[in-house]
């Protein structure tokens, strides 16, 4: 989900990561200064500079740019405010207006690779040694079928189940034991509604989030959305039907989903923070939106792994990657990788950078230490977590049910072809199931599959 992923990227990275390397690691200085004198200077344009309406983050970003240039005198950075935006990206690409380095969500790399809109980074990543440091599972997001790498992941999450610990307690449920299966989830939701009068469970349904969350749910039931090469819809089958049936029964039999049908990310976050929802599917970084933006008590926030049904199937993943312009020369590509590493990944491998980032996060009153999927290898990630331990300002024990399982839970990428169009076609399916008691689930899925197949064939 594009917008969500961007928010995740912002949530995970911008205030926090941008601060990451504002005091440059000293090792880079010597190397940069040494090699700088004789070589030709390279200039690259880097995107994602915060706007002037966000002075604190902009200052940190600018500081980092200055530090990078000091450490690498042979590279000149030209920072621009361009952000990935689904409504303008294609036009910017067509007009040659994209920066050399840009942050984009996980939904995009496969399409960009297919349309040849991104540079092949395999060689420079190998030369740099970065290739071996990254988490191979997450690296797949930016690889083509022969294993060439076109995008560098810098933040990742997997969807879990966010729940309100206070409502759990009020309903007589154990707030340290979120549901592990959808059957349990259904029973919990019913109990929450009966004991507290609030919606036990809610699900997003509009602006493509309906299809996106249905995809997540379908995966948890063992289903899929498209076949492997993305040429045909594959959701008109038993797991997807079971997933929708579960929703239908919670809404109409148990009456545990409240009255509202139309939720997007903003709407569901507000309603959840106001204590009107017991559980919903989201990623750990929802913490930031719920607690920092919408005023939920930190102690009421809980997250567990994605409940599974009839087996251990896995959950949907998302996050952001850095891409490099396809027009970049080899020297520019190398410079871009240096910058990506410096700006986004150093904190995972350099203790000073990690500590500075964490300190800055605390000073800016941002959540520090929100768990996510590691973009670097697992050992390295736990070392990083030890480094920042003294600065963590989120209740890690509330994330424990999620972190215990998420590290090993299988992650499944989003549908490979036209994910957003597929999600759009699935929105009304979920809305109908939640909006009309007599919805014919099989017919809805068959019709939606027809629509999706027409789009995939176009």
């Amino acid at each position: 989900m594009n917008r969500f992923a961007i928010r995740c990227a912002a949530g995970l990275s911008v205030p926090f990561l941008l601060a990451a390397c504002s005091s440059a690691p000293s090792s880079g200085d010597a190397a940069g200064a040494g090699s700088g004198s004789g070589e030709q200077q390279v200039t690259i344009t880097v995107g994602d500079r915060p706007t002037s309406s966000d002075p604190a983050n902009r200052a940190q970003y600018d500081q980092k740019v200055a530090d990078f240039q000091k450490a690498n005198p042979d590279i000149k950075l030209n920072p621009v405010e361009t952000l990935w935006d689904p409504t303008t990206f294609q036009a910017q690409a067509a007009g040659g207006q994209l920066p050399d380095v840009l942050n984009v969500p996980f939904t995009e790399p496969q399409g960009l690779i297919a349309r040849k809109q991104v540079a092949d980074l395999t060689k420079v990543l190998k030369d740099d040694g970065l290739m071996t440091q990254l988490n191979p599972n997450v690296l797949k997001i930016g690889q083509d079928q022969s294993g060439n790498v076109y995008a560098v992941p810098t933040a990742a999450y997997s969807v879990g189940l966010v729940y309100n610990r206070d409502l759990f307690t009020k309903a007589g449920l154990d707030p340290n034991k979120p549901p592990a299966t959808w059957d349990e989830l259904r029973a919990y939701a019913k109990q929450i509604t009966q004991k507290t009068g609030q919606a036990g469970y809610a699900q997003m349904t509009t602006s493509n989030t309906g299809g996106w969350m249905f995809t997540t749910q379908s995966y948890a039931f063992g289903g899929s959305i498209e076949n492997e090469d993305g040429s045909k819809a594959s959701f008109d089958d038993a797991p997807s039907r079971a997933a929708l049936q579960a929703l239908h029964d919670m809404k109409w039999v148990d009456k545990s989903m409240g009255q509202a049908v139309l939720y997007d990310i903003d709407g569901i976050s507000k309603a959840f923070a106001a204590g009107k929802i017991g559980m919903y599917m989201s990623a750990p970084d929802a913490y930031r939106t719920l607690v920092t933006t919408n005023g939920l008590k930190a102690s009421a926030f809980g997250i567990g792994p994605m409940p599974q049904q009839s087996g251990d199937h896995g959950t949907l993943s998302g996050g952001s990657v850095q891409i490099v312009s396809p027009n970049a020369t080899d020297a520019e590509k190398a410079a871009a990788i240096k910058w990506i590493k410096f700006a986004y990944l150093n904190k995972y491998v350099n203790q000073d950078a990690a500590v500075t980032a964490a300190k800055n996060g605390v000073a800016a009153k941002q959540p520090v230490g929100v768990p996510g999927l590691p973009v670097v290898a697992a050992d390295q990630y736990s070392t990083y977590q030890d480094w920042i331990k003294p600065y963590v300002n989120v209740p890690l024990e509330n994330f424990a049910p999620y972190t215990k399982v998420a590290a090993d839970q299988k992650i499944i990428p989003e549908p490979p072809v036209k994910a957003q169009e597929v999600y759009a076609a699935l929105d009304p399916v979920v809305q109908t199931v939640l909006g009309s008691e007599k919805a014919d689930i099989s017919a809805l899925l068959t019709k939606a599959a027809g629509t999706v197949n027409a789009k995939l064939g176009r």
Partner: protein
Amino acid sequence: MLFALPVLLVFLVFSWGPIVKGLVMSLQQTNLIDPVKWVGLENFRYVLSDPAVGQASLNTLWFTLLALLFGFPVPLLLAMFLSELRGRSWLYSTLAYLPVITPPVVAILLWRFFYDPSPGGMFNSILGSVGLGPFLWLDSPSSAMPSIVLEATWAGAGNAVIIYLAALTSVRTDLYEAAELDGAGVVRRVWHVMLPHLRSVLLLMLLLQIIGTMQLFTEPLLFTGGGPQGATTTILLLIYNYAFVNGDYGAATALSVLLALALAVVSAVFQLATRGWSTE
């Protein structure tokens, strides 16, 4: 002619240029990056076979009809009412105009809060106190569009009120006085004096409203995202989704061309049909 040239050029480049470009794009397949492919009428065939287009057309017409039935008379009645008030009329017209200066996004977020479907929602608690509801408002396919019409009428009435008020000031006061002397009550004064004077303005406003309502976009996008079950997906929202969500500019421009054609036909028929009335 020479002096008019710059204006003409600007007009050609910035006004007609995009229109022609749109027409051309409706015959191409392009994502603005790959080389352009000519596909003839393929885009038109595709959008006409998309079941969403049929539903969106019906939704759009449904909105237009509801807006004409409920949204059109409201500002007229308001304007007549305000013009009858003696003194402080500036205050009342300011109050009537206030919703117009509220930014649409803010107004819609506010109304979304009003329309909360739970029994504790703003409108539902008010109606609940007199034993009505709770209503689902935006969350039910049958009430979503009327709910949008209600908000749109509230938001847009002020503009029309101001125009009607201006038109009403042009009615000569001696006509009212004469009617009053003849013993005409308020209703007869409105019917025999006020309305005939407003006729041409009314017809123009009607045409503008039809064209305006057929381009409904912001409200469904922000209120419902086109849901529930596609009940508020309008043609313009669909064009937006084609272009900016799917990156299918060919389909988006093809549908835009079809909408423009439909509006041109509506306007022409309207003009022909009302030629007699407005110049009576």
